[in-house]
């Protein structure tokens, strides 16, 4: 009985982990595409003086998260600093400050976890 219960518990613990891993793979894939979407929009709409890009580079605090209408579980922010690497590290371009980024995270109404899921640097 003990062995049976242990086996059942092991299965019950294992499957939710598999589900979580699947969900995370799905959401990371979507985050990458949606980050690309936002970066291309900025490039398309910017003016000759590159005002949009410059304003994003200057952001030391990311913009408020805006929920994607097609996927209310995800939100985007623009930023000039990294949230994944808050401290600038020499030799690590991902941590460089003053570089335009789009950051994808869970929508605040979906999960309280506001850590970035995906960061795309799209400076020219």
């Amino acid at each position, binding site marked *: 009985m003990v062995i049976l219960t242990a086996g*059942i518990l092991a*299965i*019950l613990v294992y*499957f*939710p982990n*598999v*589900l979580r891993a*699947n*969900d995370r*793979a*799905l959401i990371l*894939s*979507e985050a990458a*595409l*949606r980050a*690309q*979407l*936002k970066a*291309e*929009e*900025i*490039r*398309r*709409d*910017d*003016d*000759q*003086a590159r*005002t*949009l890009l410059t*304003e*994003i580079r*200057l*952001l030391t605090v990311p*913009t*408020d998260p*805006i*929920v994607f*209408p*097609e996927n209310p579980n995800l939100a*985007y*922010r*623009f930023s000039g600093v990294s949230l994944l690497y808050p401290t600038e590290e020499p030799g690590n371009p991902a941590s460089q400050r003053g570089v335009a980024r789009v950051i994808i995270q869970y929508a605040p109404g979906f999960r309280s976890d506001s850590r970035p899921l995906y960061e795309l640097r799209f400076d020219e």
Partner: protein
Amino acid sequence: MNKQAGQRKSGGGWTLVEMLVALAVGSAFLAGVMTAFIQILRASDRSERMTEAYQNARAAVEAIAVYVKAARIEPSQTYQFFQGVNVPTLSGDRIDNDGDGRIDEELVNGLDDDGDWVLQRDDHHARMGAAVERRNSVGRPDLGDGHVDEDCAFNHDRLSLAIFPDPTIPGSRDELTSFALGLWEGENFVLLQSTIQDASQGSTVPQIDPLAFNVLSVNFLYWDPNRAEPYWVTQWDAFSGLFPPPGIELPAAVFIKVTVYSGRKPIEQVVASNEPLETVSACTIVDIESVIHDPRYEQFVRPNQ
């Protein structure tokens, strides 16, 4: 004496009532475990199907994006070739996604077809200092806002384009390619890519490859830089003569959306019935670099603010 009585009791087995109670408790426990197990298996199966369908859709979107990005205005040519055909269908996933009592009532066009967009609630634009994203559409519905294109019928759009060889890049591509839904080795609902290599050298034999299976909808929208306020249009024909100078013959960007079936039953069976369709969609926007960097685009669409 007491020892003998104790031995009799321990060796006397269980009564029928004890057995029945133990059996009932055991059965209830096992039933609970089985129910949980079945639910977990179902959730796991659905999650795996969704993940696989999404990877298919994403791979297709990215494959198309590579070609769209490389489309080029070739000044030495007397014509440019970029043709997008809009093919709407009558139904979508058969689900009332926005809860308004209507099903699949919208078209993918970046407009509020069903009239439920509300300024205070749905007008989403990030603000960066003095600048604002999608500045041309602040205060009006557009792609990126809430309640725009949220419950759409499927499309079977077709996109064909030329990638002219760039004389400044040795070995650059020279291709005519098109993307459309079709039949592949007897299987329906396949997103196909048809490519003619060395088209400008007279080659006419296309190579046809499947990009994704179980595809229910393919949407393309084109960002028209020639409008007074650039916006999405649902079709494009660079060869139509609609772009007299100084018009720009190619769209500045293309919105790509691929919707893939993720249900368990065979797709033909579900499509033929009236059941709701489980789907996942992948979408993105791709700029056409040759247009974005064209001096005309800089001049007409990107005035200094």
